[in-house]
């Protein structure tokens, strides 16, 4: 009896979590998928209309703005956050004094929620309150920095704020990776007369490939589900110029009584996440087996 329990205990303990995951994640994903084929408006309705909601979605100019923004935002955000994080990690890894304090400073933005980040940057970037006013008060009266209020540039302000928030986290990941690199490898490279740059480029960075992968996956899903930052920084504006799929989905499903359309946009977002996660999982799982 006791033996049996002991064998089954892990399964028993995992079961509730597994059930909750199955119902709350996969169950509702399935439900949303079904909803996206119905004509649901304010509340779910079971009249099926085939792909009509998807057709409406892709005929909507606002959705295309949101998709373009997502592409710009995701690419810039991931690339800049990675480069900046890596640079900070490498500099901190050079055994400088007080690196503990510096690490905390860079990591600290991560402790702040996106709402706070968004609100703070909204003030910093506001032409009448923030950087533009400050520089003008210093005497440079022709200075202009008003991306926040320019429809073409607003999406880049979201990149700035998101990078500020997340690059410290990337730095921490890389720092952990760097600390894990075998010292003897580096020593050997130095003995062979490799320059610091070559040591990093040819020896250390290739070792850190898993950290790169991990960071990209984490950053890209932060980017795709990005909602609170946009909401607090630009509110999707000016107009709907800085809308992202997540804000589009929320607006249509919940405040505009277009649940079917919102569900369709959620499914497209899911497809986007899958396109990134599935190849990653595939390579990870295959790597484990071999």
């Amino acid at each position, binding site marked *: 009896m006791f033996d049996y329990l002991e064998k089954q205990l892990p399964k028993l303990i995992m079961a509730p979590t597994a059930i909750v995951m199955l119902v709350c994640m996969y169950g509702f994903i399935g439900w949303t998928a079904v909803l996206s084929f119905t004509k649901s408006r304010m509340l779910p309705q079971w009249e099926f209309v085939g792909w009509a909601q998807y057709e409406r979605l892709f005929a909507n100019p606002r959705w295309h703005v949101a998709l373009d923004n997502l592409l710009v935002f995701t690419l810039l955000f991931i690339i800049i956050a990675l480069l900046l994080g890596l640079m900070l990690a490498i500099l901190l890894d050079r055994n400088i004094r007080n690196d503990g304090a510096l690490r905390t400073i860079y990591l600290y933005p991560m402790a702040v929620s996106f709402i706070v980040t968004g609100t703070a940057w909204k003030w910093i970037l506001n032409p009448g*309150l923030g950087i533009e006013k400050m520089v003008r008060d210093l005497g440079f009266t022709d200075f202009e920095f008003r991306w926040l209020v320019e429809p073409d540039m607003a999406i880049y302000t979201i990149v700035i704020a998101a990078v500020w928030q997340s690059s410290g986290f990337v730095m921490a990941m890389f720092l952990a990776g760097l600390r894990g690199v075998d010292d003897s490898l580096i020593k050997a490279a130095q003995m062979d007369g490799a320059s610091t740059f070559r040591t990093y480029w040819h020896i250390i960075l290739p070792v850190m490939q898993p950290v790169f992968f991990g960071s990209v996956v984490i950053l890209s899903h932060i980017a795709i589900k990005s909602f609170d930052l946009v909401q607090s920084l630009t509110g999707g504006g000016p107009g709907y110029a800085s809308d992202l799929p997540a804000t589009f989905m929320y607006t249509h499903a919940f405040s505009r009584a277009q649940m079917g359309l919102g569900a369709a946009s959620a499914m497209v977002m899911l497809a986007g996440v899958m396109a990134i996660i599935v190849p990653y999982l595939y390579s990870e799982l295959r790597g484990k087996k071999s």
Partner: protein
Amino acid sequence: MKTKLTGLALATMMAVAPSAQAGEVEVLHWWTSGGEATSVAFLKKQLAESGVDWVDFAVAGGGGESAMTVLKSRAISGNSPTAAQIKGPSIQEWGELGFLSSIDDVAKANNWDEILPEVVSDVMKYNGEYVAAPVNVHRVNWLWANPEVFRKAGATIPTTWDDFMVQAQKLKDAGYIALAHGGQAWQDATVFEAVVLGVGGADYYNKAFVQADMNALNSATTKEVFETFGQLRQFVDINSPGRDWNLATSMVIKGEAGMQIMGDWAKGEFKVAGKNPGTDYVCVAAPGTSGAYTFNVDSFAFFNQSDAESTQAQKVMAKEILSTDFQRVFNLNKGSIPARLGMARTEFDSCAHDSMDAFVASSASGSLVPSFAHGMAVSEAISGAIYDSATQFFNSDDSASEGVAQLVAAVAAAK
């Protein structure tokens, strides 16, 4: 024996119902700030006097979006509150889904058909029966102006849109921000609505933006509307995107800006700042709309209840909402005017008097129109499409014909 018992039970119920224990009402609302919260507290007190307990179900957050989300989940799970703050065509949508309960007997007993203007009572009825009770009437097409700024700039308060451009230019030349505006979609839509009514008139407004008639939308008048709306871009300051409406109002109060186009809830801001209507600030109808009135009526809709006690409490609440006491106190606090006609008006200020007069006059002349920017005229889907088009146009350099094309496409897609 059985009939006798039932009769006895009925008699007991009838005897008990109107007295002390009339149950409780759970009310979903988003009136959580300042004057609004005071008004809700007053209703609570009144109900307590009739023996009805008030269970507060306040979900804060701009314009009630979060409250609506909560309400939907409660309704689907079969646990609707007694009443919820719902307005405009949404009442019809909830009615169609079969969630609302008729309070027609209360309405008949208290002559609601007589004391409410028809445009308002129509909104409150589903299938010819009352399912909701109105608490107030907001006028949306107001122009708020700072006379001091106008005097310094040598400008006069405009009454037509052509004149508006001339006077706004004078304000701008004198170094003021001509139009205080917050660049949020609903505020863009509020100004757009005033332009639609001022340029196109009430008939056009009704055809294009209430019935969403495609021919009326795709017309020369709409192009003219967009031309005027586009001219306003130059009179708004660069910092407007994302600004809250009350900050725009305070720019007028402080004399940084000359005017703001906003509903009569802006009055509350002037009041709090200690300003008096007529001398410190002026309220006039938005340009070209002096005979017309865009209304925004807040109301409570009543949901089906499973037990008789709650239904009874619901009816007491419905009756109290249209009592003169509640209508007076609530609207004095909120800056709106009472939904019921023929009330004493001495306590209200001059702006409210104007609003009351215009309400009656426009009701008679047929130029009393529902506000599409505030969810009174069209379904949420269509008003969302109008929001998108208006805000996109106002924040870009699109030409008027591009604006029309975009509006027509968006409304067609939302239908």
